């Protein structure tokens, strides 16, 4: 479990609504995170978790509602400005920059904070080592296994020196050894002070990492609280009935 945090609220969404044509993906949802927390968002497929994520990261614009990151109103901000403010995210389906090497991928992240390529290379090297990809640094991104691609994606996000990190279904497709490694990495990052929000299907990971879990279903929050409380909630169990998420 991550260290208890009594920090300030650094990410706050109020009354979020997102409509795609006739479909309401997120419906009047509030969401907030304090500095240093590690929280999770779970829910059956189509619950609106990824949409919530994309809204927080600035990839989508909310139909209604407000979002603030580190005290700044980011409701109308584009994803790149949100990133510069200090919120980094990974993608559900990894998005490596295919024609670059691993190191270069991470350098792109590092370049948010510096104009010097030399400086960026140094910082990126350090991050690459940190996540355990040191030996792959000069290989083309396309040569990596899925687990390592996910690591690279985390490294890239870390290189942007975020205060908040959003991890979008990072654990999918990993075998149990890779999963343990990943969980350990994420735990360490949080212990060092990084605020982390995880969207996940792999319940085991969320339970072992998060101090608080938010459950979404059909675009709305149906439960929120410590893991054992949330997972025992009959509404949550009902939402998952028929879903094989707890096989993960």
């Amino acid at each position, binding site marked *: 479990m991550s260290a208890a945090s009594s920090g300030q609220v650094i990410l706050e969404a109020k009354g979020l609504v997102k409509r795609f044509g006739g479909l309401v993906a997120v419906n009047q949802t509030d969401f907030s995170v304090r500095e240093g927390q590690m929280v999770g968002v779970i829910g059956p497929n189509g619950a609106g978790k990824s949409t919530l994520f994309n809204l927080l990261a600035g*990839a989508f614009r909310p139909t209604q509602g407000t979002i603030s990151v580190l005290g700044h109103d980011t409701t109308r901000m584009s994803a790149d400005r949100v990133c510069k403010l200090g919120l*980094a995210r990974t*993608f559900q389906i990894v998005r490596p*920059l295919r024609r670059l090497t691993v190191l270069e991928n991470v350098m792109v992240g590092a*370049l948010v904070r510096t104009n010097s390529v030399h400086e960026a290379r140094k910082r990126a090297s350090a991050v690459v080592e940190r996540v355990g990809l040191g030996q792959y640094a000069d290989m083309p991104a396309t040569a990596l296994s899925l687990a390592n691609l996910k690591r690279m994606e985390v490294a890239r996000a870390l290189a942007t020196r975020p205060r908040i990190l959003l991890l979008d279904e990072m654990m999918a497709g990993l075998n149990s050894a890779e999963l343990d490694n990943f969980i350990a990495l994420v735990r360490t990052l949080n212990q060092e002070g990084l605020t982390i929000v995880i969207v996940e299907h792999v319940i085991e990971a969320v339970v072992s990492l998060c101090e608080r879990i938010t459950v979404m279903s059909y675009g709305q929050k149906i439960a929120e609280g410590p893991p054992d409380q949330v997972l025992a909630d009959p509404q949550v169990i009902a939402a998952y009935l028929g879903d094989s998420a707890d096989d993960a």
Partner: protein
Amino acid sequence: MLTRISAPWWATVALTVLLVLASLFGGTFWAHIAILAFMWAAAASAWNIVGGFAGQTSLGHAAFFGVGAYTSTLLYVHFGISPWLGMLAGMVLGALLATLVGLPTLRLRGTYFSLGTFALGTTMMLVAIQWRDLTKGGEGLSVPFNEGLLNFSFLSKTPYVLIALLFMAISAGVAELIARSKLGYQLAAIRDDQEAARALGIDVTRAKLIAAAISGGLTAMCGTFYAQYIYYINPASVFGSNTSFQPLLLTIIGGIGTVYGPLLGALTIVPLTQLILGSLGGEAAGLHTLVFGVALVVIVLFAPAGLGQAAANVRSLLASRLMGRGQVKPAQPAEQKGVK
């Protein structure tokens, strides 16, 4: 140490040297070939900044080429301003046009962007034909010849060879600087995955616009050179679609997205087509472009990473055969950032 220079660069440097020597000892025929090759290499390198680095396939770069050619020529004809200054003015205008046009078009998806730029080039040509008061329309403009460095006019071809070579170096040099800089990395990210680039804090529109402005300015520079070498410009020759396609096609043949690619493509194809044109004369009408078209089709089908990568593959294949190594490891795709 020499083995660190990659095969494509070896080829590029070798061709450059050969062309310079040929122009010095081979008479005006070869000088002309060298001049055109270097000029198109410069134009292709400029195009590659937007088309290759940023991955935005522009089909309308003739718009900037023509702006350069007409700006310097008109300033010279009407106000007696030195074509060198006119060139600088043209470059500024080219960069401005690229930014103005880029603002709306760079937001469009690939196909629409390409079609939009294609329309731009054609529109500029039609405007040039229509605006007879300014451009004398389809008749074109003759560029006055007054020999002298300040007038960018020379009797001998040798100064042109050197200037064209200089422009090629400038264009390639700028490309290399960009490739190594923060902008270069940003463009590479944009080219590979725009959304990922945004999530990594890159202001995509701004980066593309900067690339477009630089590309437009450098292309305009080549337009002025053309005017001062050929001494006659008209809408079809400087704004026409051939002028838009040439840098693009040469870059693809050489290796898109690399710094050497546009150079290699121009230095191989331009002399080849000029030789055909020159040796067969009138009978060759169409043959030289046929060779160009066939080369393009062959490259796209069989060596899409360009001649440079093909050369690198051949070299590593030979190297491993000669060394007797058991395993043949193909060379890394040269499109990667950082690999020259």
